[in-house]
């Protein structure tokens, strides 16, 4: 990019011939530069104007980027008034200390992505300050139930000493299996571990994880990683192969 800009500058300002063709080329480059400035530098220009306390620029910023702020807020609350309060809180925090947060933005990412990250953080802080750390339970509707459902009595009738013993054995086996799997995952390298966690524990799509980690063949990568995990778990003496396969199938969501 710098090379292109350098060549452009040389063509525009260099000691070239001033014939018609050279002037045409210079004009074309000038148009390209104007377009690049118009489309490419809009975020920086807008942010610069906002930091200079330009009210019109701030309004333009609000009109242009509120969708990203709002998108981060609606994930954590459904209440209209609460959403409004959080939204205004985020804007207030962005304006705080003469746009200190915006001033810290170094253009390492897109402004919209950074705003999403910041808005999520500010929204969580706001809601946690109001409801405590487990504010997300507010979304779960608590319904009072008069007495226990009938099917619980039916299930209670089926509980026998044999079934209790079998259940305890399954629980113990599962705990051992989970700890063995955790140990196998810990032995993976960072990239493999991150991919497995994002896909099988956080529920992201394999395609999305491939985009994040810049893996052109994410499916093959994950297949190899699962094979590694299986190999580690097979070395554990306590479990037979069929149990490991069942456990792995239960963990995978796709």
């Amino acid at each position, binding site marked *: 990019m710098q090379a292109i800009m350098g060549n452009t500058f040389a063509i525009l300002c260099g000691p070239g011939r001033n014939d018609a063709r050279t002037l045409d080329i210079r004009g074309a480059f000038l148009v390209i530069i104007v377009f690049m400035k118009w489309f490419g530098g809009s975020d920086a220009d807008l942010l610069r104007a906002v930091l200079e306390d330009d009210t019109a620029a701030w309004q333009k910023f609000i009109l242009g980027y509120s969708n990203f702020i709002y*998108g981060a807020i609606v994930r954590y609350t459904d209440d209209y008034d609460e959403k409004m309060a959080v*939204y*205004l809180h985020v804007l207030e925090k962005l304006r705080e200390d003469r746009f200190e947060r915006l001033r810290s933005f170094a253009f*390492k*990412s897109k402004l919209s992505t950074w705003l*999403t*990250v910041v808005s999520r953080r500010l929204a969580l802080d706001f809601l946690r300050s109001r409801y405590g750390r487990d504010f997300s339970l507010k979304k779960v509707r608590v319904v009072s139930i008069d007495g226990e459902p009938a099917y619980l009595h039916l299930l209670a009738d089926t509980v026998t000493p044999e079934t209790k013993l079998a259940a305890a054995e399954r629980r113990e086996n599962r705990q051992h299996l989970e700890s063995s799997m955790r140990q196998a995952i810990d032995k993976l390298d960072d990239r493999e*571990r991150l991919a497995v966690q994002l896909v099988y524990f956080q529920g992201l799509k394999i395609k999305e994880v491939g985009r994040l980690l810049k893996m052109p063949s994410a499916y093959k990568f994950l297949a190899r990683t699962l094979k590694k995990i299986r190999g580690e778990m097979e070395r554990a003496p306590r479990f037979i192969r069929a149990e490991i396969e069942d456990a792995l199938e239960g963990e995978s969501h796709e």
Partner: protein
Amino acid sequence: MSEHIAGEDLAAFVDGTLQGKEKAGIESHLSRCPECLEALTEIVEIRSRPVKIPSDFLRSALKVPDEGTLGEKEAPARTALPMRLAFGIAAVFLVVVVLGYFILGGGRSRRARFPLEGRDDRPLAEALSPEPAKAEESGRAPAALPEPARAKKAKSGAGEIMSTAKSAPVAQAEAVLKPAAAPQDKATLRMADEVAKDRRQEAEAAVGGVQAPAEKDRLGETKLAASGAAGVPARVEEYQSADAKMLRSRPAGPAAADGALQLFLAATGRAAAPLGLRIAALAPGPFIRIEGDVSPADLRDPGVLREWTWFRRGTALELAIGPDGSVTAVSLIGTWDRRAGALAEEASGKLLFSPSRKSSRRAVLTADDVPL
């Protein structure tokens, strides 16, 4: 566990702009920090589902009152509405003009392009002469008429009509019509001569029952000089020939303009609906043409004319109309039987035209089987 990932680094990781060690460090941290991993997952999910903020939120943020505009939606609507309205009116007007041309004007111009069957289609000078075919064939002036009054009328009428027949519109119309009518000229003239003779005989037979009116203006062009016994046939001939002349002298352009004007007057409420008349004319029943000082658009209830089944082709009605639009006098022209004449007088008296400042107006109603 080291500190959590900074917001901008996390955003850069999501955008994929990190490279080398920086990227590896973030990946390493993410693989061991559940909180940052959760944050990454949520941000990816938020970015993959874009939402649109309600306008209330923007109003609150910008501190714009409810009735104010945000510069995105309401502002263009204020300027767009009049333009849309103007284009709509222009489109409607265009449709009206086109409809007027094809429905109202097109018929008349099309009607004038083929020879009028059974109608005296000659110029008035020929129509008024006793032996038109002979005169044309010999190429000489018509012979002297036996009756002095008739000769006087023919002479004066011919002089007037000849002077008007050579006016520019008539010459243009005849030039347009000439190629189509040329092969049939002789046959048409012969047929017209026979028809005129028959009608003259019929009119002379019925002269006792019909009153010839006094001298009146005839479409502002000729004066009827004849009176007495020769009045009725002369008047019939004059109407027929003047009618044919008027058809010839009306090219398509003015006819289309008339049609559009009628429709425009009806649309603006300044005249009765002419479409009603035309639609009635297209329906089965007699077609009635209204000419003179009024037009079909002036008729308040054009649908009445559909009931005039007794109005036969070859007959005509002359109406005197008062300033309020009511019919003050009725004259029967042509051959009428007693019953049809009574019906005509009764029905004509019920007609109502649009009012006018003129003290008296005149209308001539002619019947035709073929709609224009």
